[in-house]
């Protein structure tokens, strides 16, 4: 088939170019974050750690802290209030976009407020609601996932991450943020 030979070469070329551009489009945001992003430290909670298949690095799983009820805006509070305990969130709420404002306290940035609308200024992270849970103190927390990997393969020659997980010490993540989108650079255990 492939008729119309006159413009065919140009057509093939255009198709090839479009495909390459579509593939490259995946890299636009990461590059923007890398170039123009603000570097911050976020505290994370380690959830599991194990060596990867090649045994050269470790696979470290972590969570960014869940958002306390007091930090939620009215819309998000309504969602949390409407959800009975242990009942899954409806699909609409489960994937709802949340804007989490960050504020620097010492070297670390912590969550100050979460809202359903984009903040006018300041540093913020874009996330999506995944569930509601209760803390040990029976406080209702909103669990949000950000555009960060939930696990990372990282070299740990001195076993510091491994110890941090075992001893429950502080782990900080170096994160670059640009217009709410984030990229994880590295994890650092902080000795007490």
């Amino acid at each position, binding site marked *: 088939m492939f008729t119309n030979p006159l413009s065919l070469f140009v057509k093939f070329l255009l198709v090839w170019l479009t495909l390459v551009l579509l*593939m490259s489009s995946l890299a636009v945001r990461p590059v923007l974050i890398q170039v123009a992003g603000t570097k911050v430290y976020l505290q994370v909670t380690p959830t599991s750690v194990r060596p990867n298949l090649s045994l050269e690095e470790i696979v470290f799983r972590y969570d960014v802290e869940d958002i306390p009820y007091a930090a939620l805006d009215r819309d998000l509070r309504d969602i949390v209030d409407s959800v009975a305990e242990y009942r899954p969130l*409806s*699909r609409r709420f489960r994937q709802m976009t949340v804007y989490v404002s960050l504020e620097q306290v010492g070297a670390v940035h912590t969550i100050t407020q979460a809202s359903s609308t984009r903040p006018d200024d300041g540093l913020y992270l874009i996330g999506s609601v995944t569930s509601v849970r209760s803390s040990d103190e029976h406080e209702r927390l909103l669990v949000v996932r950000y555009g960060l990997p939930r696990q990372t393969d990282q070299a740990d020659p001195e076993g510091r991450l491994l110890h941090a997980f075992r001893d429950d010490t502080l782990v900080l993540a170096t994160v670059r943020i640009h217009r709410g989108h984030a990229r994880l650079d590295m994890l650092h255990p902080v000795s007490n």
Partner: protein
Amino acid sequence: MKTKIKLRQVQFLDEALKNAVEHDQISPDQAEQVLGNYAVSEGFNAMKAWLGIGAVLVGVGLLFLVWANWAAIPNFGRVVLIVVVLSLSLGVAYVWRMTQPVTATAFWYLSAIIYGAGLFLIVESYQLQVTQSYIFFLWALGAIVLGTLKPTGWMFFMATALLALSIMVGFYDALMIRTAVVLAGLLVINKYLAPRLLFTAALIGLGLLWYYHIMQYFDVKTLYVSWGYLTIGVLLYHLPIPFNRKACQQLGLVSLGIGGFILTFPAIWAEIGAFSSGNIVSTLFVLSFIGYLLWLLGRVEPLTLGIIAALLLRYSLDERYSIALRATIFIIGGLVLLAGGFYFERKHHRGARHVH
């Protein structure tokens, strides 16, 4: 434009026309004119199939090879490798388009596979936080772009299937709008570039899937979702849609069948609280729905027999009814299906006699 028919049909037509010319029923010119209205369709081609399988095997083999040595290649090298392999495949499709058209087509399909796999590999190597839905969406876009090179091919089906996958693996606000826009674009392509009946059917199927997911997203009650399916089905069947009407009607029957089937369950009606147990209203619905299906049966729609059979099976297996009642439903159902089959056969014979 010539109508494409199978080689066997052309041979039969040729024979019949020669016969008519010999008996002086038509002139040789007229016979030539009639035959000129038809062209032999490509149909199933073993060579095509072999080359197609070959292309897929090469694609999968290459991917495994790359995957096995992936860690040893630096990130930028990986991207270069993907682009080079894609360019080679597309280049071969271009160079061989005249001399080896079937092989060229196989490489054209291979390019789509390499492109899709490339998306996944790039995301994996750079650890990009991109959802699988979005990757499938980008793959579908690529397949559409590739499809424009040869609009009569199956590439648009691939794009439709990839869009369906992207909806099924995750549906979020941005994706629902994007998919709707691409679906609309595909409908335009279907109308002006690739007017295949099967493509129309696939697109309507995708539309119905999209509708289901959007209803799920907004937590709409099953009763309303089912009524939606029923209404869409009835509209698709009865509206005088001027394009590929057969596909619209058949998918309309599928849609109204799904909607009607779900609405036969009393619990679905009770869900909204207006009907206490839902028994009376669902019975009334079933009676009118079966009446409508029987009317459709009269319009020689074999698919309605399938819907009726599904309904009968549903009642026969419903343990809330006594064995005697369920047995009666089986018998009545069997009789309806037999009568339907008899009716269709008579219609078919009548049509055949008319031809003779």
